[in-house]
């Protein structure tokens, strides 16, 4: 295949997927019984895709942040509290939530990036817990462990005489909101990764001392990417908040703001394929759908997740995105094995 043909194939595949994403609520309405429920699931998938992709952006510089859930909490709570207390529009507060998350991330980035590797992971992990406990502790602001509920606050959009309320009634409007917002964020991340900055990140992840010695501002780049990722994570928190209309920091591992969410994002990223931009998309969509289909065996779910993760790390380090390549290798291996069997039996 020529390069041109390859590019055409890629672009057309992209367009098909895009159309599929946009038409999804209508497909669901036509095919499944509980379309609003499935639309709701896809809204959550969108939110988690954004979080996972942000985590991957940080990982491009070689560091694993386990504080994703914490920054999501900051964004979500900030958006909700600003809207409840000051009556600001959800559009503004979602943005402000992201900005607050980015500001905290940006301020902490310098001290945090003075440490590397496992130290960085531990720091972010503990930071996530600090946010969680603070949300529970500052009950005068956050409602404590009881949390916040705000059903009367819904983002609305007025274009001329047309008024769109992004309600949870059918979830369709909110789905498109998430698609547009997450789409733009992913596009930004994609452009950054494919630009010169992305190459610099790669160089930092592969050999940071070398990168520094050739004049790369390693710290500056790390702070930049961390801040951007925190912004998107906070934004995801805001999207989550105004979709679910409630936030609570119950300290059980399954809670969305708990450490487990960060671990699940890590899993979506690794299972999807950490080296590909599409990895988080594939991982998140597949896993969250699987989880929904497997509701009846939800008790076993962590077991299944853990097993898949370990299998992927050992047998498919490139993740599901690398499946075509792996299947070819496996096919070759199988053929070789069969041929040898045939030869030895002759």
């Amino acid at each position, binding site marked *: 295949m020529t390069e041109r043909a390859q590019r055409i194939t890629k672009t057309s595949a992209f367009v098909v997927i895009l159309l599929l994403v946009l038409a999804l609520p209508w497909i669901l309405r036509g095919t499944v019984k509980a379309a609003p429920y499935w639309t709701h699931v896809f809204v959550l998938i969108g939110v988690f895709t954004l979080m996972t992709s942000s985590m991957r952006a940080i990982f491009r510089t070689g560091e694993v942040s386990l504080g994703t859930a914490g920054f999501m909490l900051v964004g979500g709570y900030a958006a909700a509290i600003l809207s409840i207390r000051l009556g600001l529009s959800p559009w503004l507060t979602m943005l402000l939530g992201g900005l607050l998350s980015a500001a905290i991330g940006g301020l902490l980035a310098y001290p945090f990036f003075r*440490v590397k590797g496992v*130290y960085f992971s531990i720091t972010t992990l503990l930071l996530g817990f*600090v946010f969680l406990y603070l949300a529970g502790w500052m009950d005068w602001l956050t409602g404590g462990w009881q949390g916040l509920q705000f059903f009367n606050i819904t983002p609305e959009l007025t274009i001329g005489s047309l008024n769109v309320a992004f309600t949870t009634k059918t979830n369709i409007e909110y789905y498109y909101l998430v698609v547009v917002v997450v789409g733009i964020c992913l596009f930004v991340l994609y452009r950054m990764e494919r630009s010169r900055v992305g190459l610099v990140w790669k160089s930092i992840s592969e050999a940071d001392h070398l990168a520094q010695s050739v004049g790369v501002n390693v710290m500056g780049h790390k702070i930049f990417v961390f801040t951007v990722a925190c912004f998107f994570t906070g934004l995801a928190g805001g999207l989550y908040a105004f979709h679910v209309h409630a936030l609570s920091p119950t300290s059980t591992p399954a809670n969305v703001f708990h450490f487990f969410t960060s671990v699940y994002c890590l899993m979506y990223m690794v299972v999807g394929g950490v080296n590909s931009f599409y990895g988080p998309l594939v991982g998140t969509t597949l896993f969250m759908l699987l989880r929904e289909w497997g509701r009846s065996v939800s008790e*076993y*779910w962590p077991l299944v*997740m*853990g097993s898949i*993760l370990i299998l992927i790390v050992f047998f498919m380090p490139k993740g599901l995105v690398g499946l075509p390549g792996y299947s070819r290798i496996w096919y070759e291996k199988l053929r070789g094995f069969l041929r040898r069997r045939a030869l030895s039996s002759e």
Partner: protein
Amino acid sequence: MDITAQDAVQSIINGLCMGGTYVLIGLGLTLILGIMNILQFAHGEVYMVGAFIVYLLCVLNGVNLYLAVVISMIATAVLGLILERVFLRPLKGVFLSYVCVTTGLSLILQTAVMLVFSKGVKQLPSLWGGSFSVGGMFISRERVVAIVIALLLTLALYSFLKWTRYGLAMTASAQHREGALMQGINPNLMSALVVAIGSGLAAVGGALGGSIFNLDPYMGGLAFMKGVTLIVIGGLGSIPGAVVGGLFLGVAESLLALFFGSQMGIILPLVLVIIFLLFRPKGLFGHD
């Protein structure tokens, strides 16, 4: 609220006891990190499995509590050996891989234990019920037993590392992996040994924790967090650091909770550790 000096002293003693159980989980974490360069995210679950083995033997089958703890220690050490051979050794300390594999393991162990021992909170019998009073202070007996056991085990580990051939080899590997390799120390043997020892200690920690507090399949997560906190304070890979860090964490939590309420007792140590990590990432006793 009037907190008397007696209350404070009492809190320090309680904190030392908490610290004792933290030390037992922290020692394994720090040893594994030092020798294999792996942060064992499933170590909290090993701690939990240890406690549940004691529960299985002691509560469900009527074995003596202390005997059950010894059996659990051995069984968990064997579990550690298996985990090391099958999952940890092939990873060769590659960061992302071990983060994923060990968190995966912790999910699997949690769910498996939950499925085997139904859900819900369980309790081990008290190590030694009741409390005694000294100069107006009440000190619970089981906490004293716990801290004695923790200190004895730490001393035993220390002597092992100081005076036996294997122990010295382990110390050498932890200090300089390549150097130890050049001296003919088998790194695979060392990593097997260290995971086995660490897991055994964690099992005892789990049994003590399960007896003083309670046990459920998710207890490992919190224990792991405490372990990470204390090894950061003490310095990653350092044994004296783990002991001092653990006792310090226990006392700090207890006193902070006494003066500022139980919520602050959880939040402040975490903030403290983050600050610690940023300004002295090597910890109190760390080395390069």
